[in-house]
């Protein structure tokens, strides 16, 4: 574990109980999030991004989900095995999360101010009035106009983008050391999105806050992340610094992602997509799980699950033909 890693995930496998027994939604995920760093996570719908994020805070329901393997270390403690009481302190305090679904993640019977100040009152013991004025400051910070009035409103009176910003305000209220942001800007127009990213960047600089940014929007990732992890069907398939990933993607899936972005500049043109679909977690596919959709599939791909191989410093790829061609000879 690198000395500066804030959170360090090793070999994490999370399974869900289904009709067909326990099925792995994510498998052997290993990644580090360094203090003050922004880690981007991209991947197709259903690839396991949210499952990974929720695991860090252990937010899966008992009985349906289990971490079959692995560890998640924060300050020398394994969050997967920490007692519930410790975890409660971590959630919202050390690590905060912006949930993917702002529509149903706010409590409809509490005002915005109450919901924002809840964790402040819990973790920092603020009074009700202090909480409210802090909530108004936070609403200002996430660029919501008329903050004092909005503070006293209920969630259903806000637009989709405003709700999403309220979620962000809740998450940053306690100045966490790690912010996990699951699709935090999907409901925002690009100018406000830019302002929110700016805000997160400032918090990062000011507090050394690390951000784990999950997004479908490769534009946001390109702009915001230092390092990017690409997930496919529950596994990390590529991991690289942002510049390398966009200029020289190595995994065929990452290449596909980049290609599907091209041609978006021509009006009326059909958008490009990767043919086929992500396999369900319980679908048995021999070897590489991207194989059935891959244009470069070879016999070795079907023979065994490719390993995540380092092809240069900080650049890992899970693709047997590619890593054989590209990995340093000594491996």
């Amino acid at each position, binding site marked *: 574990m690198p000395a500066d890693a804030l959170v360090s995930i090793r070999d994490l496998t999370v399974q869900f109980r289904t009709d067909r027994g326990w099925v792995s939604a994510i498998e052997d995920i290993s990644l580090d999030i360094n203090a003050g760093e922004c880690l981007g996570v991209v991947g197709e719908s259903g690839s396991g991004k949210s499952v990974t994020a929720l695991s860090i805070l252990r937010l899966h329901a008992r009985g349906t989900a289990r971490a079959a393997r692995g560890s998640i270390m924060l300050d020398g403690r394994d969050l997967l095995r920490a007692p519930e009481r410790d975890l409660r302190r971590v959630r919202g305090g050390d690590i905060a999360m912006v949930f993917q679904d702002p529509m149903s993640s706010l409590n409809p019977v509490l005002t915005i101010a109450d919901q924002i100040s809840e964790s402040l009152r819990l973790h920092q013991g603020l009074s009700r009035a202090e909480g409210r004025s802090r909530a108004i400051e936070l609403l200002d910070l996430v660029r919501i106009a008329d903050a004092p009035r909005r503070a006293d409103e209920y969630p259903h009176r806000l637009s989709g983008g405003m709700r999403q910003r309220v979620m962000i305000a809740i998450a940053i209220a306690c100045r966490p050391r790690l912010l996990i942001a699951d699709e935090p800007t999907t409901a925002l127009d*690009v100018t406000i999105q830019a302002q929110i990213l700016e805000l997160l960047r400032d918090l990062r600089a000011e507090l050394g806050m690390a951000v784990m940014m999950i997004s479908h929007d490769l534009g946001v990732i390109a702009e915001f992340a230092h390092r990017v992890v690409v997930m496919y069907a529950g596994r990390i398939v590529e991991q690289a610094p942002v510049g390398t990933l966009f200029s020289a993607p190595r995994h065929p899936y990452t290449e596909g992602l980049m290609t599907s972005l091209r041609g978006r500049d021509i009006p009326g043109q059909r958008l490009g997509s990767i043919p086929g679909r992500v396999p369900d977690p319980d679908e048995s596919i021999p070897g590489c799980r991207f194989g059935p959709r891959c244009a470069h599939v070879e016999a070795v791909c079907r023979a065994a699950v490719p390993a995540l191989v380092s092809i240069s410093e900080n650049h890992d790829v899970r693709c047997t033909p590619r890593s054989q061609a590209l990995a340093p000879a000594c491996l």
Partner: protein
Amino acid sequence: MPVTSETSVEVRDLTMSFGSGGAGRRPTMVQVLHDLTFDIGSAETLGLVGESGSGKSTVGRILVGLLKPTGGSVRLFGRSVTGADRAANFAAVRSRVQFVFQDPHAALNPRIRVGHSIAEPIDIAGKHSRRDRDDRVRQLLELVGLPRDSADRFPHEFSGGQRQRIVIARALSLSPDFVVCDEPVSALDVSMQAQIVNLLMDLQDRFGLSYLFIAHDMTVVRAIARRVAVMYAGSIVEIARNADLYADPLHPYTRALLDAMPRPDPTRIRPRTIPGEVPSLLAPPSGCRFHTRCPHVMPRCRDESPRLLEIAPGRQVACHLFTAAETTEP
């Protein structure tokens, strides 16, 4: 006999206000839509973009009858759904308008089998026998590219993109002529976005659907819309043909919007975002509501609010930069 018309939707001077304020206080009305006027032709897609909170969803919800506007008129397929016979006229066009939601997770009742969700509009309209209905459901599933046996499964068994297809199937169940798509692909990955957008375009070609397509992603709007309307603080500030808007944005807000588009290129430095505060609805800026943030602001902008004027065929802008020439003419 229904009035046939080339335009599916005609909106004139639409205004909308909501009561504001928390519990206990006397409600003041806050106006969130200001005199919107636009048309959507049959088999046409109008893209609607703009600031978060500028009123896009409110427009969509008014068009499908979820909200009653406080002023102006809306005609759907030639029938006024805001006037005296509002209820009767709306009942007559109900089956021809539909809505696709942003969040495919919230758009389907988790306790109801997918087939029943898709058939719900048919059941409510009460027009079909059980047999016809089941046939129709299978047909719709095929149309949106899902296996026929999906009907018996529950929503949680589908991924986000598949669920969005189910939502689209439900929207198509009564063969509507006009569909409001409120950020239908925001929650999906690029590849899935492409599949859904392509599906919507195919359906338009086959059935002559019209769309109001609300989105934040300008690249998606560019792909699907024929014309685009840009909203800021409750008003339309620009309407233009797709190609014109992207090639030559006129209104300063539109320009800012296009400049702020994130590009998948880590080497590119993004231009600074628009300075200034997001406008308050309670005390909106005087004159042009964009004047507090506009790089081209003129004295006149502070006093006089610009009207949406046609400055070229098919091109309307609400900005004094473009009305100046016209008003100085005799």
